[in-house]
Structure formats: structure tokens, C-alpha cells
């Protein structure tokens, strides 16, 4: 029993999110909640996702209606024990709303952590850091490595949650996001070298790595080359565990320069294609229009995935990589088959239903828990 009252607030998913619309409540007033329960659906201009309860207790009050759009940080509801009197709940809400109004006015410009740039071996790499700790003292930091055509925003549903335990770095690989586009030769080795240089540039001695898709192959490569620097590797729908990869996706991603052509390509990423929003497409088109992106993606695709075959497969070398590895997959992955997960032995293999290649977005809560648990014991 506790007298604590906990606020449910509009999360900030990704750098650009300023507000979200509550599309529906999945639980009723008075519901018993466990931490991690899905309680409502939130739609941003970029994506729709479920909001999971950050606390256990009773949903004492819902302060927004379905259909309402509210700013990041706004009160969505209140969780507390049944023993907490209504008057205290009312007082809590009143106080929160008053303070939030003041903070919102002040914070209108200073909205959360800003991305920074590191000079990694002559490459300018963008990264975003959340949470605290640099390894050595306390928890080793976690470095998140996106996949082909992605960027640090791919971890928007993961980075804030994972940053509660440690410093979490998400970076843009060369040729991606806002990192250097020029001089990319392609090849997983080059990208792994860039991540190694990034660790040097940011003063990270040892780190957990989590890589999505091609980023997983990059993590494996680094773990294989410099095992002393890698505490653990989490592979999310990863490349590097088998030959097969969806060439239609890779080529379609490179070729599409119109929304209409791009949409079906991006829909391959999700179990639920309706998650591909117009803003998501627009953001990616904006990325693809940047000077050098076309050449960089072409070079990477040619070096790493020529002819729909992955050039570098670590599956048979995994025992030589002296670093704990886990794999998380979406059962409906249409880019890299979930069967590739079998390269990783139980219990560190997790294939989640109802999710595709972007399992860390579609099943963010579950993925976050799996990563968090895996890292905590290391």
C-alpha cells in the first residue's frame, strides 16, 4: 500500500514530437494496472503507438478524452492505490495542471535533449544521448545502431525507456540521418569502424550494443573485432545471421523518390502497414533528397547486400565472439526472415508475434524489457 500518486503523461517519441492525439483508451476508469500494461493509443503525425503504464496501481482518473490532442508532458491520467482519497487525487491534478501550464510556457523552446555531433575518425556523426553513466562507474552505456536507411529516431520508443538505467547513445551511421554522407564505400566493416571511432570520440570505453537489421551486423562486427570494448550485443531483426535479405526492399528503398512509390516499400517493414504515416514517408523522402544519400545507400547496398545476399554472415563464427548475444525478432519480418534468429540459442532468442521488421517500434515495451533485462545481468 502506498500513498503515492503517479501521473501518466504524454510521452515524447522522437525529436520532432511536440504533441500527440489520444486515439483510444484501452482500459476503463478504475482498472487495475500493472506496469507495462497497454492503456491507451497515441497518434503522432509520424506514427501511432500504444502507451504502456509506467506504474502499477489503479487508474483513478482519465484526464483526456479519446480524440483529444495534447502537448508532450501533458497529464493523461492518474494512477494510485484505492486508499488514496478522491480529494488528494483532485488536488494532485490541480497542482499538476497549474505547474504544467507554467512549465509548458517556459519549455516551449527547450524541448528535451538535443542531438550532438562527434568527429569520429574524420567522419561527422550525429548522435543523441539520454540518461547518465559512462561505463566503468555503474552501468556501461548502451549504443543503439539503426539499420539500412534508418537513423537515430528509429529508437524513439526505446531510448527514453532504456535511459532510465544507463546512458543510452543513438547514433546516425555514415550515409544516414544527419551524419556525413560523403566518402561512404559501403560494407559492414567500414560502418563498424565508424562506430568504433564514435566510441573513441565520445570517450566510451565499453558499451552494450544494440543493432537493428544492418546495425546488428555492425554490432557483431565490432564485437568480433574488439570484444574487449563490447559488453553485450542485442540483435534486433538483425542482418549478419544468414544470407537471405529482401532485395526488393533494399532496391525499392533506394529507387523510390515519390510518396506513392515509397509507401509500399515502407509497408514491408511493419506487421501492421497502417503504421506507415504520410509524415514517416515525408521524413524519409527528405532524407533521401540530401546530397550524397543516393550514392551512400547504393554503395552500402552493393557492398553489403548485393543480389539479395548478405555479404557478411557471422552465424558460424558466433562462438568466436566472446560476448553475450541475444536476438529479438518480429515473427512477421519481411526483410530479414525470423528464421535467422535460430542462430542464437535459447534462452536469448525472442521471436515476438504481431510485429514485423520494426519490432522495436511495434512492440516497443516488450523489446525494451528484453533489452533492459539482458543488460541488467551483465
Amino acid at each position, binding site marked *: 500500500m502506498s500513498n503515492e500518486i503517479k501521473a501518466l503523461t504524454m510521452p515524447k517519441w522522437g525529436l520532432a514530437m511536440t504533441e500527440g492525439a489520444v486515439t483510444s483508451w484501452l482500459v476503463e476508469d478504475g482498472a487495475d494496472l500493472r506496469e507495462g500494461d497497454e492503456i491507451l493509443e497515441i497518434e503522432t503525425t509520424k506514427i501511432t503507438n500504444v502507451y504502456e503504464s509506467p506504474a502499477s496501481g489503479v487508474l483513478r482518473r482519465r484526464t483526456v478524452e479519446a480524440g483529444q490532442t495534447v502537448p508532450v508532458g501533458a497529464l493523461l491520467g492518474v494512477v494510485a492505490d484505492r486508499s488514496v482519497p478522491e480529494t488528494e487525487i483532485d488536488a494532485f491534478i490541480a497542482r499538476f495542471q497549474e505547474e504544467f501550464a507554467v512549465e509548458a510556457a517556459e519549455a516551449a523552446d527547450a524541448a528535451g535533449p538535443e542531438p550532438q555531433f562527434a568527429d569520429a575518425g574524420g567522419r561527422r556523426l550525429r548522435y543523441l544521448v539520454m540518461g547518465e553513466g559512462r561505463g566503468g562507474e555503474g552501468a556501461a552505456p548502451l549504443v543503439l545502431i539503426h539499420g539500412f536507411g534508418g537513423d537515430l529516431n528509429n529508437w524513439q520508443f526505446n531510448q527514453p525507456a532504456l535511459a532510465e538505467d544507463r546512458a543510452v547513445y543513438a547514433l546516425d551511421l555514415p550515409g544516414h540521418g544527419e551524419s556525413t554522407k560523403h566518402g561512404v564505400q559501403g560494407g559492414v566493416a567500414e560502418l563498424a569502424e565508424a562506430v568504433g571511432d564514435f566510441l573513441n570520440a565520445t570517450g566510451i570505453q565499453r558499451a552494450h550494443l544494440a543493432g537493428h537489421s544492418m546495425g546488428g551486423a555492425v554490432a557483431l562486427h565490432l564485437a568480433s573485432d574488439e570484444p574487449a570494448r563490447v559488453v553485450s550485443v542485442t540483435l534486433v531483426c538483425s542482418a549478419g545471421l544468414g544470407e537471405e535479405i529482401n532485395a526488393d526492399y533494399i532496391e525499392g528503398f533506394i529507387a523510390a*523518390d515519390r510518396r506513392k512509390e515509397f509507401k509500399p516499400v515502407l509497408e514491408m517493414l511493419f506487421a501492421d502497414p497502417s503504421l506507415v504515416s504520410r509524415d514517416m514517408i515525408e521524413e524519409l523522402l527528405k532524407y533521401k533528397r540530401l546530397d550524397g544519400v543516393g550514392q551512400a545507400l547504393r554503395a552500402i547496398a552493393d557492398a553489403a547486400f548485393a543480389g539479395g545476399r548478405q555479404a557478411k554472415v557471422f552465424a558460424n563464427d558466433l562462438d568466436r565472439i566472446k560476448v553475450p548475444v541475444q536476438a529479438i525478432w518480429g515473427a512477421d519480418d519481411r526483410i530479414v526472415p525470423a528464421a535467422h534468429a535460430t542462430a542464437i540459442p535459447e534462452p536469448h532468442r525472442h521471436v515476438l508475434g504481431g510485429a514485423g521488421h520494426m519490432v522495436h517500434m511495434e512492440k516497443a515495451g516488450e523489446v525494451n524489457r528484453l533489452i533492459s533485462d539482458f543488460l541488467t545481468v551483465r
Partner: protein
Amino acid sequence: MSKKSYRQAINEALAQEMRRDPTVIVMGEDNAGGMGAPGDDDAWGGVLGVTKGLMPEFGRDRVLDTPITESAFIGAAVGAAATGLRPVAELMFVDFLGVCFDQIFNQAAKFRYMFGGKAVTPVVIRTMYGAGFRAASQHSQCLYPIFTHIPGLKVVVPSSAYEAKGLLIQSIRDNDPVIFLEHKVLYDEIEEVPDEPYTIPFGEANLTREGDHVTIVALGRMVGFANRAADALQKEGITCTVVDPRTTSPLDEDTIIESVENTGRLVVVDEASPRCGMAADISALVAQNAFKALKAPIRMVTPPHTPVPFAPQLEDAYIPTPEKIADAVRHVMA
């Protein structure tokens, strides 16, 4: 990525292209400003400061102030383009077209065709257009339909800072003569614009809103107005697709036609005069190609067929507004 104004986005596009390609030069009246005068160098950077800072970085050889001599310097830009430079010439106000049009439509536009495909004339003419500045009849027009009428010219009408930077870089790299029209009221509008150079291809419309009931096609400053109208109408249960063609030549006909085939209703918004304008042109396009899809007559939202007036009350009445656009949408929904 950072927030930039339309003006800054254009300036950055020019600077980045000048750094990338030594054949890119800019010229125009007061483009640096202060040439030959006793005061500051780079005194103006164009009459509204769009080119400010270029001269200190690139020097007087690549940022050329001109006398007030539009025929000569627009023609010189065309001649320089035909012989190996990539000039970006600034025609201060598009209204000044009247004193240099020959060099644009008889020379630049026709070289390639007349000379059997052997000429390449990569000139960009940047020019300010549009009403809203209390600048009266000779400094407020939207003459892009006139350029659009001329085969051989490409015509670009950017609607925001992001659009302006990518479309200007595309214009500079393009190998055909490009007229790049900047709405003077948009110069201080701010949005996120990538710091890196990027290009937006010509002839590809942007859908700034997607809805089921009505297609609104709008250009330049009118895109923002159409978005506001669409957002207001959404509260009434009417959802609109807003199409920003970005370029009037080439025109993304397919996107417009496809959208009307989906919605069945068309409102075209154009700040240019109504006769022989883009609104009429796009209406004809849809009438010819998607007539059977139309559930209501096409509506055009344009100014009246008058010069742009001076008095603020008159000018405000002249310019299309989000309210007028919303009314037109309600009308086609009725």
C-alpha cells in the same frame, strides 16, 4: 536540421552551390549593395537581404552588382549560361519582367529548340512576387502564368523554407532556364530546414494534406492558406487533399488528376490574375481528364481581374484568404 526562414533557406542554397561549383555566380541590382558607394560593402544583399553575406565570402567577381539595367544583365546571365557559367540572376520584382522579357522568352527559352538541341542554358532567374506588401500595382503581381506559357522555361513557385532551399539547389543544377519565384511575404516564415544541401525534383507535387472530400490545388503562399482552410474544415467533417504542385512547368498533372479522381471535387487557388492563369489551366486539365470523376463544378479562388490595389483595405480584399478557400470548399460540398 535547424529552423530557418525562407530568406535564410534561399541564401544557404546559394552559398552551398557557390561553394560546390565555381561556375555558379549571382548577379543583380544591389545583390551585394554599396558598389562604388562610400559606405559599407555588402550594404544590402538585395533589396530584402536575401543575398547578404555572399559577397564577403565569394568576392565581387562572383557576386556582381549591376546597374539598373534588367535587359542587359538578364541577357548577360543568359549569354553567360550559354557559354559555361551557371548564373543566378535576380530580377528584383517580377513586375520588372516588362523591361527584360525578350531575353527570357525569345532568347533563353528558345535557344535549345531553335539550335536543334545543341544549346544548354542553365540560368536561374530569381524574382520576388506577390501581393501583401502594400506595394501597389507594379510591385505585387504574380506573373508565373506568363512564364509557364513559354515552352523552354521551367517555373518554380516554392511554398515554404524547406521547399525553397531544395528547389533552388535543383534549379541551379538544372540544365534548363529556370524562373524561381519567391513570395515576398514568405521571407520571414520559419521552419525546419536541413543544413545539408538537398534537391527537390521538378514536376513532383507535394501533398501537404490528405483527405477524402475535396482536392485543393494551391501555389506558393496560397499553399499555407489552403492548409489553414483544410485544417478548419476538418473540424466540420470535411477532409481535403492539398496539392502543392511546386513547379508550374513542368506540372505534375498525374498527381492532380489522380487526387481529383479520388475526391471528385476540385478547388484551385491562385494568387495570379484569373484570366489565363494557373487556376484556369489546372481547371481545364481536370475538366479534360477527370470530368467523369467530378461530383461538383470546379471552383477557382483567385483575385478579381484588376491590378493589385494600394490601400490596405483594398489589397486585403484582393488577396484570396483561407476563409475564401474554405467557402469554396463548402460550396463544392453543398
